[in-house]
């Protein structure tokens, strides 16, 4: 019941925002919808925390330790993004980059997008997961091209086509999975339910599932943005409005990875080995290295941080592939803290580029003097994202590194190399932007403080201390994934 309420809020908010159109209070309605979703998700989480896993809605929905923390995270980040988008989008309107129709569309689609992601997380059905993933793509495609500039249209087209193809291959994987499951579970929706599939994964046909995993890997891997399927990601993240970049980077990639990891556990169950994990390790490590090198030559600030997202998704994929409780725990934590950090960075980046009227790194200067919150926010965000202690990413990366040393020591140098290059590249690019004198074309503006501060505090806290409920969830999720 609670799940239906949770999903219903977003749909309702999307409908309301589509109907009322561009009003003065539309951003507030947007925030309200997201906040209500967040509250509902917290209730759901509490319910799961006290009463354990649950299956509801005629077995179409289920909640366990793995998806509940992602659902809360999704609801939380979407709420803070809604808060951030109020001043940001208003400023974009004042600059004349967006009209009334675009704003109405933006608000409605934002809510629909959150709905699609929560649906993907909470559904118990592999087929519906696929549909929600596709819906998430479709709802954001036109948001990427919201500015209607040639490059944004091009980016959106690339996003649409590449993700469309990728996700189509994932559907083929789903068909194969259903083929294998039907033999064991019989026809109908019940043969596509995670709960049923997980129970019988040992008796699924291994050859079919291995083949299915190849399609899942390519399909959902495209959405995760793994190299070499990542082509759409920097463009889509750089050309869309910044709030959309924040949720794409912070949330959508997580959801896609979630889908991939769920599939992996089934395949592992069927094949009694870790071949799927090895494929994921390879994709993850290549993504880490390639994106780290790409970071070195970025000129656009949003593009640069999109590459950083690829890098971190690579790390998480690699860690899930590595398996074992330490690496999996690290990967789960990594998804959480990366999402918080990356969206905070995008918030500050959005303000920074508005202050300078450009996204070019070489023209953004003197942020700390110009606007201390934006400057320090970016600085600390980058410090967190490159894995400096005491932030949460240090913890997760350290865990993953420890696991690597233990079970695949030969890969450790590559992993460290990737991290080191990303570290150097990001620091080198960010230092001149943050420090130094204020250029004359910089103009200060009203910024939204709360989301950035909130995210950074959370990342800091997670680096120092893991709350009991969270560690219980993560341990539960690790048990699920083993």
């Amino acid at each position: 019941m609670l799940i239906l309420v949770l999903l219903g809020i977003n749909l309702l908010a999307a409908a309301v925002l589509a109907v009322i159109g561009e009003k003065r209070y539309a951003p507030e309605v947007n925030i309200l919808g997201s906040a209500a979703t967040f509250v509902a998700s917290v209730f759901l989480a509490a319910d799961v925390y006290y009463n354990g896993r649950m299956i509801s809605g005629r077995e179409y929905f289920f909640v366990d330790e793995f998806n509940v923390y992602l659902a809360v995270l999704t609801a939380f980040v979407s709420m803070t993004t809604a808060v951030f988008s109020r001043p940001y989008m208003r400023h974009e309107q004042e600059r004349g980059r967006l009209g009334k129709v675009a704003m109405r569309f933006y608000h409605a689609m934002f809510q629909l997008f959150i709905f699609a992601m929560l649906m993907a997380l909470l559904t118990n059905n592999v087929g519906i997961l696929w549909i929600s993933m596709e819906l998430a793509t479709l709802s954001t495609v036109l948001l990427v091209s919201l500015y209607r500039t040639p490059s944004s249209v091009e980016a959106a087209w690339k996003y649409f086509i590449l993700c469309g193809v990728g996700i189509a291959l994932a559907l083929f994987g789903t068909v194969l999975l259903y083929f294998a499951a039907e033999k064991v579970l019989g026809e109908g929706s019940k043969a596509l339910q995670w709960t049923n599939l997980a129970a019988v994964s040992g008796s699924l046909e291994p050859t079919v599932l291995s083949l299915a995993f190849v399609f899942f890997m390519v399909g959902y891997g495209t959405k995760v943005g793994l190299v070499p399927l990542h082509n759409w990601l920097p463009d889509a993240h750089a050309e869309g409005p910044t709030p959309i970049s924040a949720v794409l980077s912070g949330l959508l990639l997580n959801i896609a990875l979630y889908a991939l990891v769920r599939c992996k556990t089934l395949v592992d169950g069927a094949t009694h080995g870790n071949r799927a994990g090895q494929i994921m390790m390879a994709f993850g490590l290549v993504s880490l290295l390639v994106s780290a090198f790409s970071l070195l030559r970025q000129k656009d600030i949003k593009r640069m941080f999109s590459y950083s997202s690829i890098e971190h998704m690579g790390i998480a994929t690699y860690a899930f592939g590595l398996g074992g409780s330490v690496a999996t725990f690290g990967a789960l934590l990594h998804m959480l803290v990366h999402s918080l950090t990356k969206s905070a960075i995008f918030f500050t980046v959005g303000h920074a580029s508005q202050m300078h009227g450009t996204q070019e790194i070489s023209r953004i200067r003197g942020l700390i003097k110009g606007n201390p919150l934006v400057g320090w926010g970016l600085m600390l965000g980058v410090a967190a994202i490159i894995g400096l202690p005491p932030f949460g990413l240090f913890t997760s990366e350290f865990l993953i590194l420890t696991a690597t040393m233990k079970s695949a020591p030969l890969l450790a140098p590559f992993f460290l190399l990737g991290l080191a290059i990303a570290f150097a590249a990001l620091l080198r690019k960010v230092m001149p932007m943050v420090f130094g004198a204020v250029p004359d074309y910089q103009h200060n503006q009203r910024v939204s403080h709360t989301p950035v501060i909130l995210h950074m505090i959370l990342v800091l806290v997670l680096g120092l201390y893991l709350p009991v409920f969270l560690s219980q969830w993560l341990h539960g999720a690790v048990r699920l994934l083993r």
Partner: protein
Amino acid sequence: MTAGLAVQINSVLAALILLTSFGLLVQRRIYGMLRLFAWQGAFLSLSTAIVGYTAGLHHLYISAALTLALKVFALPYILYVLIHRLEIKRDVEELVNIPTTMLIGIALVIFSYYLTAPIRELSTLITRSTLAVALATVMIGLLIMITRRKAVTQIIGFLALENGLFFAATSATYGMPLVVELGVALDILIAAFIFGIFFYHIRTSFDSLELKDMEKLKEDE
């Protein structure tokens, strides 16, 4: 209709679907591609209906009807109107010449045959042999998307790929559960509207629907 005859008709339809894929691969005119695409949808719908009849699965009639409505009438019509309104040049330009594309297509068919071999052996359904054709259709749809230069032709390739997926669902498992099929159809419909909007966007920002104009976003800007 006996089961044997149904299998024969179904495999003839599978061959026709494969043939229309190749037709899409070699066709030079956009309207010709649209017509071929509609035919492919018609064969697919007929095949789904026949499988539904022989297997006694009535939910397949619904997906056959959906395919008929969407792939044979609605989408070709929408595309036709768009092409007409936007006055797109009717010739299709391809990046790779046609004989090479055809040979790659053949290679893809053989590849899909080998890829689906284990499934064919495991399956007991009468449609199992058409799975290779389904995967080949998916692969050829991809090839069309890669080798063609226009936004419209990419979309036709994408939809042909989607046809292959539907066909795969029918031939491997007698169709996915109805909820999933309906959801997929809904997604495709939304996608169709989105690319309709897109054509206008691309048109207004690039003044053409040639994808070669859309190659600005590269690494070395």
